[in-house]
């Protein structure tokens, strides 16, 4: 297999980002790196799901956070947990893996329910509806306090996953000063990415993947060829939502407690940035995009500190957003197809 220059460049840039973490943090770099790689894995997985929507099928979905949210809430509620103002304990529930599968299916079902009325809309109109639906979901979850814990959130659920933590993680974490529970979530996230990527690779060159790309290019022509474009879009919506649901569950386990503010639109936009950075329409692109993105997010304030020694925290935060903005601008100008995207297939123009 020939390894393309693009791929090498992506690997190099990712390696360099990780190096930066060590260079900028004389102390505790490996712990920062673990935290960053855990988030990168979870967000990368979510971006891979978004790429099924946008990169493959051309669906402008700005409500990705809600798919993550549905997956997370359904899974947590089905397992033993505590929720609400009084921390009301639910001591019985399903085993992790069963709850996870139901959570993922629920996210896919939510995709279907949202898709049925919305999917006939094109381009920006779908974007508006999805962002609204995501906010409705979030506010609904906030107000259904008796089930979701409302603003007080859900706690005491991490053991459902941590009880399966293999021993080698404990030994390994101890020697490196990691939190073993985060190391385990990180590992699960990256294993999930591995399987998702393998699964999508299988689909990408299949007749089904081809049909999705045709929908992306021209829906009318798809209909004229006797194919049901709406059904294809719904399937794509469900698959991408299911992947997002899985990443939402992992996000919940990484945080250790879950509340609705996690699923604000900013989450969706982070996932979008990761997908664009990695390459729209690619399968592995978001993985590299995610690592680099998280290095930027977590290290720009350090970089800003070097540039502006006397700045206070608030000023540093401003500089950080400035740097992120500049980086995204530079990216759009010099490499709009992202790290791994093909120039000929540049997918950012939406019909």
């Amino acid at each position, binding site marked *: 297999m020939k390894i393309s220059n693009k791929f090498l460049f992506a690997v190099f840039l990712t390696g360099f980002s990780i190096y930066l973490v060590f260079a900028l943090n004389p102390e505790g770099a490996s712990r920062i790196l673990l935290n960053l790689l855990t988030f990168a894995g979870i967000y990368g997985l979510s971006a891979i799901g978004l790429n099924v929507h946008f990169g493959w099928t051309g669906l402008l979905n700005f409500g990705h956070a809600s798919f993550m949210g549905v997956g997370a809430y359904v899974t947590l509620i089905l397992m033993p947990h505590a929720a609400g103002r009084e921390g009301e304990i639910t001591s019985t529930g399903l085993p992790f893996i069963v709850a996870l599968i139901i959570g993922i299916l629920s996210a896919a079902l939510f995709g279907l329910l949202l898709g049925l009325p919305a999917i006939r809309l094109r381009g920006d109109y779908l974007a508006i509806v999805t962002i609204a639906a995501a906010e409705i979901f979030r506010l609904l979850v906030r107000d259904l306090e008796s089930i979701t814990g409302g603003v007080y959130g859900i706690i005491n659920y991490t053991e459902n996953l941590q009880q399966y933590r293999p021993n080698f993680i404990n030994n390994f974490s101890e020697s490196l000063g990691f939190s073993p529970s985060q190391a385990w979530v990180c590992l699960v996230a990256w294993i999930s990415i591995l399987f998702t990527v393998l*699964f999508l690779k*299988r*689909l990408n060159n*299949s*007749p*089904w*993947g*081809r*049909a999705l*790309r*045709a929908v*992306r*290019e*021209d829906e*009318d*022509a*798809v*209909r*004229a*060829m*006797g*194919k*049901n*474009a709406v059904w*294809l879009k719904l*399937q794509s919506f469900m*698959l991408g939502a299911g992947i997002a649901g899985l990443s939402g569950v992992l996000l919940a386990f990484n945080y250790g407690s879950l509340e609705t503010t996690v699923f604000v639109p900013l989450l969706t936009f982070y996932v979008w940035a990761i997908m664009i950075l990695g390459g729209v329409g690619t399968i592995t692109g978001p993985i590299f995009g995610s690592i680099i993105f998280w290095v930027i997010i977590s290290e720009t304030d350090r970089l800003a500190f070097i540039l502006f020694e006397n700045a206070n925290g608030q000023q540093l935060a401003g500089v950080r957003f400035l740097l992120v903005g500049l980086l995204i601008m530079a990216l759009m100008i010099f490499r709009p197809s992202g790290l791994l995207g093909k120039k*000929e*297939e540049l*997918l950012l123009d939406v019909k």
Partner: protein
Amino acid sequence: MSNSLIEVNNLKKTFGGLTAVDIKQLGFNKGQLTSIIGPNGAGKTTFFDLISGFQNSDSGDIHLKNKDISNFQPYKIARMGMVRTFQLTKVFDRMTVLENLLFSGSEISNDSLFKSVIKSKSQKKYEENLKDKAKNIMEELNILHMADSYARELSGGQKKLLELARSIINEPEILLLDEPLAGVNPKLAEDILLLIKKLSNEGITILMVEHNIEAVMKISERIVVLAEGSLIADGNPNEIRTDRNVIEAYLGKDND
């Protein structure tokens, strides 16, 4: 019911105050090559949109093979064997020419998500046959050398060819061609005309909207003339050539 393959009765479509299509009765027979002509704004493309399901009529009914298809989705109508092309060519830009054809030729059941996950032997075999079929059609239409190019890289004429190739890969019974010669150079236009003639000889019923009157006269067996949404003439090329209404419709506007 009549013997017509396609038949419309009292078909009406308005956009606000404008009557785009208002046809009392019109039928098309099996195997015939019919051209639909008329001045700009006569309702030709709207008529195509109505019978192919891309727009819904205000009233009236459309029958295809004696079945009422008035409110059918476009893809259902296409599956019944009536395939259309578009005035502004619609190809899948960021897919290769070969992929364009493979997608169009592939049956619904072959596209299924389940089969694509399983990757069965039968699907593989089906895809290989499909590839051969696509190659034959590309060869026939002289676009085989472009097989692996992205469709967006083709010239306007080549896109028309690709759209035609895509439409015939599933051997439709009826072809609706919306301006197949528009923007095509004279040499290629000649080739496309020959191809259309050949398809007609193979027994495909063809309806064609076209502004190139010379070409229309040459290959049509029947010509239907629309003006302001209504049928104003219907006959063989010789009858149409001398029809008073037609001359007025085309030339009358200049005198106004």
